[in-house]
């Protein structure tokens, strides 16, 4: 498992629907930091109704503490709702940009690999290649593991985004 994995055993995904106001993120972060919890990833974007934002947070840790964290987040005045999600009734996706070292001898091998994971090569230079990969976090973890032997120079991950299936609201 790569060091950058966000799909650990005790990993939790929390989705929040919050007022789109200054200070909201600060208050949510305080709920985590007060309990010594590290936020592994965080995605914030405006909702369809621009007065609100959607947040997806992943964090690792004890389930009971996390239950408390979700309740404390839900209690914040600017948080409309907060809940934990599991993949059985929601879609979880992540986006990653990975810059790999390119050598003439392994170029075709890497490109094959990229094709195999339905990634896209979006930038070439003499000795680097930037890949775009979209999918479940686990898939991105696997890609990273596979690319590591070639030398990953840099990587950016969006963090997990969650949306519930069907008509029910996230």
């Amino acid at each position, binding site marked *: 498992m790569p060091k950058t994995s966000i799909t650990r055993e005790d990993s939790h995904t929390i989705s929040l629907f919050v007022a789109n106001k*200054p*200070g909201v993120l600060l*208050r949510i972060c305080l709920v985590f930091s007060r309990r010594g919890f590290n936020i592994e990833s965080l995605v914030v974007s405006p909702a369809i109704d621009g007065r609100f934002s959607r947040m997806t947070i992943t964090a690792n840790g004890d389930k009971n503490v996390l239950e408390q964290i979700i309740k404390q987040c839900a209690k914040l*005045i600017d948080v409309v709702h907060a809940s934990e999600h599991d993949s059985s009734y929601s879609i979880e996706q992540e986006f990653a940009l990975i810059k790999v070292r390119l050598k003439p001898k392994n170029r075709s091998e890497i490109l094959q690999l990229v094709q195999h994971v339905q990634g896209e090569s979006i930038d070439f230079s003499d000795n680097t290649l930037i890949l775009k990969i979209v999918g479940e976090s686990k898939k991105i973890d696997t890609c990273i593991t596979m690319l590591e032997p070639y030398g990953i120079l840099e990587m950016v991950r969006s963090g997990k985004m969650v949306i519930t299936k069907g008509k029910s609201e996230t």
Partner: protein
Amino acid sequence: MTKKTLNGAESLIKCLENHGVEHIFGYPGGAAIPIFDAIYDSSIKLILVRHEQGATHMADGYARATGKPGVVLVTSGPGATNTVTGLLTANMDSVPMIVICGQQITPVLGKDAFQEADVFGITAPVVKHSYLVKDPNDIPRIVKESFFISATGRPGPVLIDVPKDVSSSPCTTNIDDCDMDLPGFSKPEKPSIKDIKKLANTIKGSKKPLLLIGHGVIISQAHKQVLALAEKLGAPVTSTLLGMGGFPENHSLSVGFLGMHGTAYANKAVAECDLIFSIGSRWDDRITPAKIERFCPGAKKCHIDIDPAEINKILVPDASCVGDAKLILESLIPMVEPLDTKDWLKKTQKNKKKYPLSYKIHGGLKAQHVIDELCKLTNGDATVTTDVGQHQMWTAQFYNFKRPEQWITSGGAGTMGFGFPAAIGAQFGQPEQTVIAICGDGGFQMTLFELSTAVIHKLPIKIVIIDNKYLGMVRQWQELFFDDRLSGVDMVGNPDFVKLAKSYGAKAFRIKRPADVKKVLKQALDYNEGPCVIHAEVIKQDNVFPMVPAGAAAEDMIISRPTTKLQKPKGST
């Protein structure tokens, strides 16, 4: 005639008037001048304090004495940061409070301007909610929301940071008619009948029930329902420190307060009960052991709280219900049947006789004697405030409270210097009541400058200084658990409190001998022209017992001064 357009500050004060605010506890400064200017023409009485911390504790005492939010007004920078301790105190004890801070002008925010501080950021962890006002037209809505938030559900402090350019600019919105915009505010849930039925079922069959009442009983005014439930079930009632006053202590079912320095008979009841039913308490670490499975082992647990986050926070109850304690109890009482508790009550009564709270009247002046006599002389009717420490525990032990809003102490935060300013606020809120601040010599010196405030307003507060010339509670720990290595607890250099009080223009009395207690206290209680200080020079070495060492379970309680060396407690503090 055209109506004069109000500026932000004027509309702010008008809104406060509309919300029924009668007093503002405040201290001015550059950034708050427009707001102080608006007070000039207002019906609101400004209480000028001597330090912003004092203002927050006054507003806190006012709120606890009246159930209405206390209002504080301070300036930017250090004025605002001085309110942090008061905000923490109010937040920990769920007290409604509105703190309004002046702030530097909007264009210089974040540019290290004079007396500029990130007050929104600094206070975020210690408030229920906060605002940085960017547009004067938002003021009426923000004030309306602040009052609603601070007093609805689980109360708490709300901070409003008002930049000076905002308070000086015109506010054209209608202050009498504005809508709140709080889509994220979770209104207290209507109690679920299913949950209440489950509570009733869990109670059924208990032979050794114990009701545990917390601050929630006082806040929701559920004391009558608690009494009715206790009498119907035949269940003894214990209370947390902040729940005192929620059940009359002279009632035969009362076993007093539980926890670290609670009564032995309350802690014995905790250790032996087969059902513990918390009504508005949060199983705080002063009453539960670090290893929670040692708390009431074998007993069923029931929990009522208005804050859903409190359910399952410390322990997982067998039955719980989220909502207002009064509403829940009103539905619950008809659902329960009297329990067979004859033997249990016999046992608790026996323990009450076997382990009474006691002190020796001879051998020097005792704090307990002073407090006991105060209780007798005031017929247990006075409103009492304290700081934190030994004197606080002795007051909890020896003053018998019987009504809500009578007992005002810093429980969760344990704030020294709270008692005296809180008494000032309480006296403003309850002008007809006798208000007594019982302080330690340490705590009193943290906010004693508010003597000016009390003298100016001729508040007939009795300030009893329990002076053992030590920071007694810490010394007690060092004595018991740290080989008597006293470090940083000697209050050498204490002033002559009688002379000090007189220099502020307050009346002052001194008690040195047990024989003088009654006489001097009587004189002090009869003096109502203004504040008076009663300097009680108590013996230096007394400690508070019983004691459950931090983190330990109720059955590990130490009843009286131990003769052997004790192990260091493994619990919190």
